[in-house]
């Protein structure tokens, strides 16, 4: 408990969280502070490029072992199954329509890469190591949730076009996945040598860019909340806090079964707990335009993302430490 409080406090006073809070408050206060779309996109490309490459480089020299493959498999399974858990929770906890619930569920099966990055920052500060391949696990968890959710929807709605091959290609080859996986493999191929060439670009300034990026995320999340006033019920907000806890528990169980290290366990929990706000919303707009984007964006970006960032991550670290031991 003590560890939790000190960790939470340390986390809340870290620059990345404070910049998120700054953006969030500025948006609520209706300041006109904003980032041009191109800069926001550029920063997110930078983050994907950097974490992909660093993950791959840190893995180079190691062979492929069973744990790596089991981790990737767990990722796929978690991503595919969590939407069902989310769907059931939503139908019990809220009065959301089946279509809306399924769309929300897709988001919670998939992942938020920035939450992952924030968690790895915190692990680094704590001196807790994790496996480089967790980046690849993150990538495998982006898409399966979408397919599960579309299956849920196709059961409920005659009208839904569901998953055509065009959409399937878009989901699997979406820019974030391609950049993340591509950088990962290039890092893997070029190894420590490649890393040392570009480290001054992707390592040293990384934290600073992350601060600016989270400032923008705060602005976007805050504005989203302001605009969505009323779109989301109190019960749905509660779901936005309960679901990450449930997801993290599922992630913890998987990690324990595979026998992951403490750091990787935390990241598996974080991935399971986090909700997508880029790839999945796009897929939902295409496949299920009837679902209300205000609901899923508000929950994922306005509720669960800040929750994980501030309370969730320190909590997952504490729990994993207690269960697994440092």
């Amino acid at each position, binding site marked *: 408990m003590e560890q939790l409080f000190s960790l939470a406090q340390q986390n809340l006073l870290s620059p990345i969280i404070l910049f998120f809070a700054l953006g969030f408050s500025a948006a609520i206060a209706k300041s006109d502070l*904003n980032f041009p779309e191109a800069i926001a996109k550029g920063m997110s490309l930078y983050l994907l490029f950097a974490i992909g490459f660093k993950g791959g480089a840190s893995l180079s020299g190691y062979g492929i072992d069973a744990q790596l493959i089991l981790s990737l498999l767990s990722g796929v399974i978690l991503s595919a199954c969590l939407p069902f858990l989310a769907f059931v929770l939503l139908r019990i906890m809220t009065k959301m329509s089946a279509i809306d619930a399924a769309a929300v569920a897709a988001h919670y099966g998939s992942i938020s890469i920035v939450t992952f990055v924030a968690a790895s920052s915190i692990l680094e500060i704590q001196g807790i190591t994790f496996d480089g391949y967790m980046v690849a696990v993150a990538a495998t968890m982006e898409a399966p949730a979408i397919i599960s959710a579309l299956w849920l929807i196709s059961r409920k709605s005659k009208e839904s076009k569901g998953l055509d091959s065009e959409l399937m290609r878009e989901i699997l080859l979406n820019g974030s996945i391609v950049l993340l996986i591509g950088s990962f493999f290039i890092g893997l191929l070029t190894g420590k040598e490649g890393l040392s060439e570009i480290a001054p670009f992707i390592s040293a300034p990384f934290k600073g860019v992350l601060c600016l990026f989270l400032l*923008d995320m705060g602005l976007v999340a805050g504005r989203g909340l302001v605009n969505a006033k009323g779109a989301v019920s109190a019960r749905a907000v509660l779901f936005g806090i309960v679901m990450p806890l449930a997801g993290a528990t599922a992630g913890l169980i998987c990690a324990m079964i595979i026998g992951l290290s403490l750091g990787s366990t935390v990241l598996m929990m974080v991935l399971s707990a986090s909700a997508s706000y880029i790839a999945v919303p*796009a897929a939902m707009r295409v496949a299920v*335009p009837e679902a209300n984007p205000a609901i899923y964006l508000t929950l994922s970006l306005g509720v669960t993302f800040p929750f994980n960032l501030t309370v969730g991550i320190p909590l997952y670290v504490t729990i994993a430490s207690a269960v697994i031991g440092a």
Partner: protein
Amino acid sequence: MDMHEAKRVEIIIEKIMENRLTDLLIEAGVKGFSVLPVSGGSGRSGHWSREGQISRAQGMSAVVCLVKPDRLDKTLDAIFPMLDRHIGVVSVTDTKVMRAELF
């Protein structure tokens, strides 16, 4: 200047549907179109602004398509099913163009 009757079809649609829409237009036989970025807007689904957006799910585009009058119905028929399900608006305006052979 020799001007010819034409229709200016302006479709404001979600960016994420842009490629699907323009594929439909090309299938319907239009000879060209232009896409203009839309930086914000308001409608039944609320107010939005492109700045600070990180989700490619949000944002709209304006597709402007000049067509010969006799091609209009085919064009509208082609795009109607998409517009019926997705948010967006269409307007059709009488206009005049130079070089009729281009449309």
